[in-house]
């Protein structure tokens, strides 16, 4: 019960009854959506929802804790390839595929722990944190890009270089003596359920004592340490959680398309999570989730005509966000319309928020 009380709090927008009524209504629409649409479209929406997990992870790290990870795609890709390697070698099916997904996330989380340890305990912060995580994802993309030869394989799983790894099984869920292959509607409900649990879980997390410390670190790491908190430990935990959400995205994506290419870690892919989250409003989970979904939907619609134009638009939106609404469009609109009640009185618009970190020293 006390856990549920933490769903609302100062770290999240939308704490009013009206918000939750709207939330339930949206959820109901989401649940009914497959009934009024064809499985192809439903599968597509599932695909969009998969990416919002990456965005939520970035919001936790960047918006709440103040760490600029430009490398979400690294963990996305590592988990994707790991899912391939594990599931192909085990010739997994049924519930085993879900264990493979967990294993893939564990590999990526371990990688995040290692990278995060070196960066955070090396007191790398600000801009440098962004650069190193960014260089990491680009280097991984370059690495997997040149694994075309047959010698590049782990057991039965070939990396296939630029073309990417293929042939991994889709996720399968045991269900009353039978197995359901997670694609189309089934995948949609599976991803929707995951997203719901993770969104609510993150709300509880950021409004808990732990979340209090995270935002305190974002505001002033030294002050937080003076209150007796081991700041670096909290940062590392937040980094691993945020990166693991990208890993979950990557694993689901790979199982969804039975395919993972190195391009998923390179440019322009690496810029996307930053754009989604910056545009939406990094300091709020709800804004991030809603904004990311809308952007992805728009991007996918335009990509059908021209991927280049879609990407130009994304770049333009990022520039526009920075120049006009640094706190993010969805967040800004939600606050200025006061559509969603906030427990605390609104303060001045945090125009300087993004710059408060200062140049890296």
């Amino acid at each position, binding site marked *: 019960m006390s856990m549920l009380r933490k769903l609302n709090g100062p770290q999240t927008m939308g704490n009013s009854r009206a918000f939750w009524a709207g939330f339930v209504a949206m959820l109901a629409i989401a649940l009914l959506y497959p009934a009024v649409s064809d499985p192809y479209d439903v599968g597509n929406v599932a695909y969009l929802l998969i990416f919002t997990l990456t965005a939520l992870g970035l919001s936790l790290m960047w918006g709440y804790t103040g760490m600029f990870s430009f490398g979400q795609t690294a963990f996305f890709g590592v988990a994707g390839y790991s899912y391939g390697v594990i599931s192909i070698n085990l010739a997994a099916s049924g519930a085993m595929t879900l264990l493979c997904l967990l294993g893939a996330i564990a590999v990526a989380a371990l990688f995040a722990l290692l990278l995060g340890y070196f960066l955070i305990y090396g007191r790398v912060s600000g801009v440098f944190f962004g650069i190193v995580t960014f260089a990491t994802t680009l280097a991984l993309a370059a690495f997997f890009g040149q694994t075309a030869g047959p010698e590049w394989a782990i057991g039965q799983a070939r990396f296939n270089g630029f073309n990417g790894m293929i042939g991994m099984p889709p996720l399968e869920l045991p269900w009353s003596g039978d197995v359901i292959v997670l694609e189309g509607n089934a995948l949609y409900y599976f991803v929707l359920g995951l997203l719901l649990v993770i969104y609510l879980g993150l709300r509880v997390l950021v409004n808990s004592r732990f979340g209090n410390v995270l935002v305190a670190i974002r505001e002033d790491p030294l002050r937080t340490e003076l209150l007796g908190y081991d700041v670096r430990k909290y940062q590392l935990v937040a980094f691993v959680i945020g990166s693991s959400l990208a890993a979950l995205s990557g694993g689901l994506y790979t199982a969804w398309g039975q395919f993972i290419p190195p391009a998923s870690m390179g440019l322009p892919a690496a810029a996307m999570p930053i*754009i989604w989250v910056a545009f939406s409003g990094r300091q709020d989970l709800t804004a991030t989730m809603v904004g990311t979904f809308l952007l992805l939907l728009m991007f996918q619609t335009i990509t059908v005509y021209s991927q280049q134009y879609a990407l130009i638009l994304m770049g333009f939106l990022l520039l526009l966000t920075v120049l006009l609404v640094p706190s993010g469009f969805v967040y800004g609109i939600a606050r200025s319309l006061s559509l969603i009640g906030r427990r605390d009185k609104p303060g001045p618009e945090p125009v300087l928020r993004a710059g408060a970190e200062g140049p890296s020293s």
Partner: protein
Amino acid sequence: MFAEAFSIAFQFADVFAFLILAAAGLAIIFGMMGIINMAHGEFITCGIYVTVIAVQHGVPLPLAQALGAVSAGLVGIALERTIIRHLYHRPLDSILATWGISLMVTQGMLIVLGSSWQGIGTPLGSFKVGDYTFSAYRLVLFGAAVGVLAGLYLIFMRTGYGVMARATMQNAAMAKALGVRTERMYAISFGLGAALAGLCGALYAPTMTLIPTMGITFIIESFVTVVVGGANVLLGTAPAGILLAIVRTALNAWYGQIAGQIGLLITVIIVIRILPEGVSGWLSRRER
């Protein structure tokens, strides 16, 4: 024996040149303003394309390369005046802004220029030492890298701009109080950084196949060199280049290109674990 030694030295010089030329422009902008120019690769691309187009119109290569550097510099100044200058008090946002611009430019060029172009071929031919063949142009690149470092040293130590720039790097508010027009310093520095990126592209233009996304070839190397070098271009970039070139040459020789790249990254992560402010931060602390 001599041939082997020469071959190793040659490869080292080649990698060193690449790191220095790729990083110099980025390092100046970072050192001066504390921002990372995510559109760095696009300035390099600009230098490449201007050079190639000029050569294809009959301009001699060295002149075309100068043209490439200058035009990238002008684009840089234009960008600084229109967008970047509004964001100096928000370094992270300036990074995001340059990232947005980078994305728009790359994709825009894909639309306008198509996916690949005819290159212009590497000039100067090759020479032989023992049984090994070497490209003479690679020596020019090494000379250019050393020249860029020497040029930067002269600019920062011997010119009025350099004195004021170093003052601004040390303490922008103080420099401003002493009458340095910091805004102009920033514009010039951004232009200089962009021009050096353009020069990098111009110099490597004859060695590459042309695609609009080729700026990315330089990105990892330039970023890691700047991170290892730290905020001071004069103090940090050259030692960082030497350190990383040694690592990379060794790994390239034993395990191939990609191991070299990953090795660079691991070196960086270890270096910042030990020296959070990079080589220049460490050196200047030792002086104190």
